[in-house]
């Protein structure tokens, strides 16, 4: 059986082009951040600049009080958010996985309903700010929207139902184990693959989140809580953000972060993800595939 290689060549060419298109902007970002600022302001960014410089990164080192702090906040928010999210989601999904539980159908419906209907930004914002007073607290970055979602609950619930043999839990019950023991000793250890997957997706969502910061943090009272994404967004909205020193609050034009600096800060924001990507790529693809049609 002889197979013509044409389609494979076409496939390689197509995939090569699409991959290059995916990569190109990142290449430009790296090069732009290492371009000499004067050269950039005269000639613009180019893939082949004639003058290179690491000044942008030196500037960031000087402003490390702001950037480093934001980094730390991103890490804290991501870790706390993922941990809480996994605990709440798994406990809830375990309850839902019990088909004999009275009211389980109603609760399932309440979960799915959140995928169909939402109160929208205005009432969500109003209730978080005026009822729960989370503005300018760290909970503003952890609580709204990201902590638990219907999609993850369904993934974990299905996993518990389909992959953990009920006989195992029944045996533990007969041996006198409480439901809590069963949960922590049987359900959680056997669900590690799915927990890793939702943990990863949630972690990426927290790491990348800038909207909660935009809605619920103000620069004056919530500036100390800014994560790296919120800093990036704030620089977008007002270029003076980095230049204003908290102690002097004097801004001179020469002190404004240049475009190359902004590119360098964006680089600093994505480097950890790119470095970690090869290690979690497999789980990430799996998480997407699981989501598939039910998206």
């Amino acid at each position: 059986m002889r197979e013509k290689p044409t389609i494979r060549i076409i496939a390689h060419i197509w995939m090569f082009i699409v991959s290059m298109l995916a990569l190109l902007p990142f290449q430009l970002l790296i090069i732009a951040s290492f371009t000499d600022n004067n050269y950039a302001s005269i000639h613009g960014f180019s893939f082949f600049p004639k003058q290179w410089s690491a000044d942008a990164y030196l500037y960031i080192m000087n402003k490390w009080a702001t950037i480093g702090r934001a980094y730390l906040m991103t890490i804290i928010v991501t870790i706390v958010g993922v941990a809480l999210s996994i605990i709440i989601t798994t406990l809830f999904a375990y309850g839902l996985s019990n088909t004999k539980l009275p009211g389980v159908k109603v609760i399932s419906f309440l979960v799915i309903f959140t995928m169909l209907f939402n109160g929208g930004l205005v009432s969500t914002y109003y209730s978080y700010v005026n009822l729960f007073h989370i503005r300018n607290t760290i909970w503003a970055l952890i609580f709204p929207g990201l902590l638990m979602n219907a999609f993850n609950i369904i993934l974990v619930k299905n996993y518990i139902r389909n992959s953990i043999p009920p006989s195992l839990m029944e045996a533990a019950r007969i041996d006198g184990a409480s439901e809590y023991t069963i949960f922590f000793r049987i359900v959680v250890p056997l669900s590690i693959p799915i927990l890793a997957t939702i943990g990863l997706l949630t972690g990426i969502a927290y790491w990348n989140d800038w909207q909660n910061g935009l809605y619920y943090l103000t620069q004056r009272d919530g500036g100390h809580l800014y994560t790296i994404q919120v800093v990036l967004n704030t620089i977008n909205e007002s270029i003076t953000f980095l230049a204003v020193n908290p102690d002097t609050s004097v801004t001179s034009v020469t002190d404004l972060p240049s475009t190359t600096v902004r590119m360098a800060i964006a680089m600093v924001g994505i480097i950890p993800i790119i470095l970690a990507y090869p290690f979690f790529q497999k789980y990430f693809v799996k998480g997407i595939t699981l989501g598939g049609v039910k998206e």
Partner: protein
Amino acid sequence: MKQSRVVGTQINKLKNTGSTSRKNKIRWKDMIPFYVMMIPGMVYLIINNYIPMFGIIIAFKKLDFQKGILGSEWIGLDNFKFLFASKDAWTITRNTVLYSVAFIVLGSLFAITTAILLNEVRSRMASRLYQSLILLPYLMSWVVVSYLGFAFLSSETGTINSMLRSLGFQTINFYNEPQYWPFILIFTNLWKTIGYGTIIYLSNVVSISKEYYEAAAIDGATKWQQIRKITLPLLKPTIITMFILQLGNVFRSDFGLFYQMPRGSGALFSVTRTLDVYVYTALMKNSDFGMSSAASFYQSIVGFILIVSANALVRKVNKDNALF
């Protein structure tokens, strides 16, 4: 627990009822731990989802912060009258729906093409490398993407303009000229989401049994014929399902894309402002609770109707793929 079970059987014997009917009875005491474990999640659903759902009544009120939502005065449909009297209502509806449809059609087309071609790549190493690379943009936040966009589009330092300049052409002030933005936004969205779509379709392409292709190859079918007569027909149910489910979401726009990419440029509002951006701007920039809550209500209700209808349609096509 063991003890209560034994006691249970004894009572059974005493009452002399059939043991089967007794077994089906729920012992509430055993169920309590399940409810306890669900408390944190229930509380979160109430705070994060259900309170805001009831909060949409703001749209029918003249909000007075002193009195709160419940105490504020009812004003009927006044907020909606203001919203729909403005030109904005039509513009933001049109933008939201048209962009969504463009994203769905072009996104599916490119994702299916890429998935089918990626499936033809035999080398596992190469296939995994391609997958990783095309997924990379999906990992980035829209803020970062707006920086990438700025590196290309900025009128002073953008690469496109520096190329135009060196070739002797007029430069283009992208952030002030609306006519380029439909293309820019569609391209950016495709760039960011094609990896995601490809992976989803690829998982469906891979699951098609190899036997079909082997049989076809023995009969002398070319690869191109195999794709047309085997792959595409077998993908059809998935494509249709995904298509309808996505259509259910045409009233929701990606706030990140439409807020971050145009960098708030007022000159671009006519082609970049969608419902989500409008609600945000009216609420946070203008502190206009009336307009923003009316627009938000409009989006929630129409969106709900669309999703439920789409789902009802999916149930008819393929029951397993329906959300509920």
